[in-house]
């Protein structure tokens, strides 16, 4: 286990060391101490290594992650897992705004609540939130799955494309062009698989409502011309 204490070593050294891990290296387990809200902890991983962060982090933790598994034993600031490509990020506490923004792949699990704009412009990432999510979540979400065990705030899925949103609790309001949809057997299967991967037990896929695009904004409607 490689241990890195941010109270004594600069963040840049940590990220450089993580980037220098070679393909096939035995240095697969890393522990980061005293993050104290530092920005950009463990960004840009590109090897299948495991990073445990002991404490709360600031902006952009695990951004651009590819293949790495990062666990934050605390809460995460804005933009955790932003533009993640693959791998996994698990936040044991809460996440601030735009968690998983523009994520292309991988799994982001937030065991507490996520704030506003969770999954904004997501492009294939899977996000599982054990608690609630804030307003404007999944804004312009393109693909991937957002699973929320609690409630969703205002304007969920505004201007959504083809991402799937599964919410177990209440939705305060839906955004433009976002509607509730039928849970077909394939959606139950996708959800069952995601819940299992995210370590959720005792929750049935049937308890969720699926939301997605009504696809009325895909083409320009001449009747709306006055609005521009």
């Amino acid at each position, binding site marked *: 286990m490689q241990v890195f204490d941010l109270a004594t070593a600069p963040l840049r050294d940590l990220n450089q060391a993580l980037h220098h891990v070679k393909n096939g290296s035995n240095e697969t387990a890393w522990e980061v101490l005293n993050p*104290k*809200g*530092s920005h950009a902890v463990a960004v840009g991983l590109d090897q299948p290594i495991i990073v445990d962060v002991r404490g*709360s982090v*600031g*902006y952009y933790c695990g951004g651009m992650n590819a293949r790495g598994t990062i666990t934050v034993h605390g*809460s995460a*600031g*804005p933009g955790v897992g932003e533009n993640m490509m693959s791998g996994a990020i698990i936040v044991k*506490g*809460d996440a*601030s*705004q735009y968690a998983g923004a523009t994520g292309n792949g991988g799994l982001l699990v937030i065991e507490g609540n996520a*704030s*506003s704009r969770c999954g904004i412009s997501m492009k294939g990432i899977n996000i599982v939130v054990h608690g609630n999510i*804030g*307003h*404007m979540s999944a804004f312009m979400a393109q693909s991937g799955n957002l699973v929320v065990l609690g409630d969703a705030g205002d304007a969920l899925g505004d201007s959504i494309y083809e991402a799937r949103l599964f919410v177990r609790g209440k939705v305060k309001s839906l955004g433009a062009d976002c509607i509730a949809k039928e849970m077909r057997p394939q959606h139950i299967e996708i959800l069952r698989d995601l819940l299992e991967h995210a370590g959720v037990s005792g929750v049935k896929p049937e308890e969720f409502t699926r939301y997605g695009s009504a696809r009325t904004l895909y083409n320009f409607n001449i009747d709306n011309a006055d609005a521009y």
Partner: protein
Amino acid sequence: MCGIVALFLKDKSLEPQLGSLLSDMLISLTDRGPDSAGIAVYGSGTENRSKITIQSPSPTKDFSGLAAELAGKIGAKAKMVVKSTHAVIDVPAAKLNEARNAITELRADTRVMGVGDVVEIYKEVGLPKTVVERFDLTKMSGTHGIGHTRMATESAVTTMGAHPFSTGPDQCLVHNGSLSNHNNVRRELVREGIRFETENDTEVAAAYISSKIARGLNLGEALEHSLEDLDGFFTFVVGTKSGFGVVRDPIACKPAIMAKTDQYVAFGTEYRALANLPGIEQAKVWEPEPSTVYFWEH
């Protein structure tokens, strides 16, 4: 950008450390705004006495002999403590307005930073660390305080453009964000007779709140109205004699985080500002909701 910190102490034993805790919180957010910094400290007052915090671009000239001249003019004792470019003048509460006018008459170049029974406001251009050292803020004690470090977007980097802005006796406001309708609101407030020192958007927000309070609203109600009348991005933190309040605009882009323990309630633009507070690991930590006015009072 910009960084805001606030600390409200519930545990009296921490009061001597207020200045040092708040200073550390502010310095931790230096990279959110290195242009200028300011702090408002709510300390202990003396019965029937009020404080006026003034600033001068030429303190040696302006502050020399001012206390004696002021005392002569208002016919009452005036005590002055000078800290760098600022001075805190202690006058009888009944003579507060008279003293305030007299100071401007006696020293035309001085500017009033704030007035009240307990508040002292210090702000200057420079890094938080420089400002903290300049005014010896770590040694200040108090019940609560607010700090701000500024990255200017809307107007010039000047002392008067730094935060906190006074909104009335023992009241001040700091802002993270930018208002988009401040010119319109300023024009309306000018028509009401309010005078402005700067082109700054936050000064408009402060004047707006003062104007609402002058019309009989309480601070909470004034903040509720600000959600309707002020357009743009904002996280406001306001200080009052008895506590502090927080409000975020409905979009809530500007980050904000709070922590609560048995000893204190703390606010920071980022968690970094809270990370070294005593007992933070056991604190309840959360983000204030958009369009919601929060208040903590002693």
